[in-house]
């Protein structure tokens, strides 16, 4: 079965007094991988569960391709799902787990086991097919869960924080594997995560959610460089918020004037939103405009935390080779590297 597009229209869902989704809209194109990113309780998992049919929306429509599946029960939706917690069936072997979806679709044993082995081969676990799931590591279990979700060729693949229970190195490897498989099979995928690095690394587009609404959905590059709201700016990556004053469309930061990029009616006292890599820190023997608090070496780059004369904490990310003379307590000169900065009301 070929992959289909996914559309959520005006979905609302409440749990008691809590509004988990508030007129939520989302479109995922055929073969696209879209991540939903946001803090705990923002509604991203609820959105995924509504798509899966594991929660029923209070109002709104879910479309797969042109077909309205809003009231279709979960087991008839033809969606593969990988869960955050290990969800393999402990009474079945690895190959039986992978073949389970095909068994439910009354595919013959020979065909479903052949398909299960193909999928296990794709995730590098064919040699483990006769084992029981408790004999596998966490990473292997999630690989099997991925194979199980893909074995019956779902129209949509749903990933509910599938990497969050894994070790750091396994997470990086598995996320690359998920992307490789998703691209090779062309499966439309909705991926929920609270880890922005994960979301940015493998997604075609990332949707940032807050309080049940989609604040912005865009490519990782656009999301990082052109955040549509103060929340997105603060949530995606690290952002310095430096107090400044708008005068004639310009803001003065660290003694230099730069163009203020407004998104609304920002005026007067504002916060200039500047990424750490857009701030340079230069050691000075004279009276600088800040002092170094800490320098964290991270290999190719170093993270420098400074404090300005007015007490503002400023973070800078620089190549390590240019930070050798920056020590805690050093007097430094901060400078904005970009000619224009986003501003937000205080």
């Amino acid at each position: 079965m070929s992959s289909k597009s996914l559309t959520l229209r005006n979905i609302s869902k409440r749990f008691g007094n809590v509004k988990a989704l508030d007129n939520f809209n989302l479109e995922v194109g055929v073969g696209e991988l879209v991540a939903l990113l946001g803090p705990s309780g923002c509604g991203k998992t609820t959105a995924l569960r509504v798509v899966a049919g594991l929660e029923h929306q209070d109002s709104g429509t879910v479309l797969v391709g042109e077909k309205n599946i809003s009231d279709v029960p979960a087991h008839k939706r033809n969606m593969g799902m990988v869960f955050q917690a290990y969800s393999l069936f402990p009474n079945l072997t690895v190959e039986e787990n992978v073949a389970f979806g095909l068994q439910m679709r009354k595919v013959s044993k020979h065909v479903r086991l052949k398909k299960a082995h193909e999928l296990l081969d794709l995730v590098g676990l064919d040699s483990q097919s006769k084992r029981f799931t408790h004999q596998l590591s966490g990473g292997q279990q999630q690989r099997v869960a991925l194979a199980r979700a893909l074995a019956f060729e779902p129209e949509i693949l749903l990933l509910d924080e599938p990497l969050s229970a894994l070790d750091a190195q396994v997470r990086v490897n598995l996320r690359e594997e998920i992307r490789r498989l998703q691209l090779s099979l062309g499966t439309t995928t909705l991926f929920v995560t609270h880890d922005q690095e994960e979301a940015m690394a493998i997604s075609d587009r990332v949707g940032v959610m807050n309080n049940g609404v989609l604040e912005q959905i865009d490519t990782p590059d656009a999301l990082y460089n052109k955040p549509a709201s103060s929340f997105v700016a603060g949530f995606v990556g690290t952002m310095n918020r430096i107090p400044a004053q708008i005068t004639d469309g310009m803001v003065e930061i660290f003694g230099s004037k730069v163009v203020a990029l407004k998104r609304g009616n920002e005026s007067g006292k504002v916060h200039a939103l500047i990424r750490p890599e857009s701030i340079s820190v230069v050691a000075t023997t004279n009276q600088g405009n800040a002092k170094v608090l800490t320098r964290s070496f991270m290999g190719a780059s170093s993270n420098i935390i400074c404090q300005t004369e007015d007490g503002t904490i400023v973070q800078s990310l620089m190549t390590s080779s240019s930070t050798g003379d920056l020590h805690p307590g050093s007097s430094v000169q901060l400078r904005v590297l970009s000619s224009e900065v986003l501003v937000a009301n205080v």
Partner: protein
Amino acid sequence: MAKGIKIKFHPPLAITLLILGFFVFIPMLSAFEYSIRTPLTGGYGWDHYLWAIREEDFFHYILRSMWLAGVTVLITLFVLVPTLTWLHLSNSKVRGLIDGLSLLPLVIPVVAFAVGAQISFPEFVQNTVLELPFLYFVLALPYAFRSLDIGLNSIPLKTITEAARSAGANWLRTITTIIVPVIRGSVMATIALTFALSLGEYTLTVLLHWDTFPTWVTYVAQENILGAIAISMMSLIIPFLILTIITLFVPERSTQGRK
């Protein structure tokens, strides 16, 4: 090299074995010893067992009790597994209420229960022996409920249920192919408890004027006490054998490492 078996002295285990020995094993051994006595010769023999087997009612009543117990087991599993699964998944406040209600058969005297049933049940229900499995189900409820409850508590029920459903399993398939096999230990314990309780139930049966194996044994005891003991000893072995066969025939699948 094989390790020698070391038996350590554990006071709680020793106390448990002592109580079991004193109140279960010694009386049973004594009953067995009594049942193989041959008073005429003053020795031992299998006369009473052979007499019991030759009694034509022996197989009639043991089979009747066994199929009634089997029906009770089916009712118990059909009613309780889906109900408890729903109670666990829904996190409903009703769960506490049902939990409390399931204990009621322990505190309601069986006599009151039987009289109540006779007064309230319509005639067509009282006319069929099939009223017994439903009443036995109620009597077994406190034990069956807890046994299944513990099993469902010990597995990640929500996750595996949702995984099964998203993979295409409807509720029936989810319960039969995933949930029941995963809590196999609890299901087997429920079957054993319900089967044994139904097979041995006497008071309710006799008060409702039905004849089953336990009521027949009591009747036999009036004319041949040694024969009745021999029958009772055999009635212990038969369900044990059946439960062992069930255990052997249900395929053993690994459910270790579940969270």
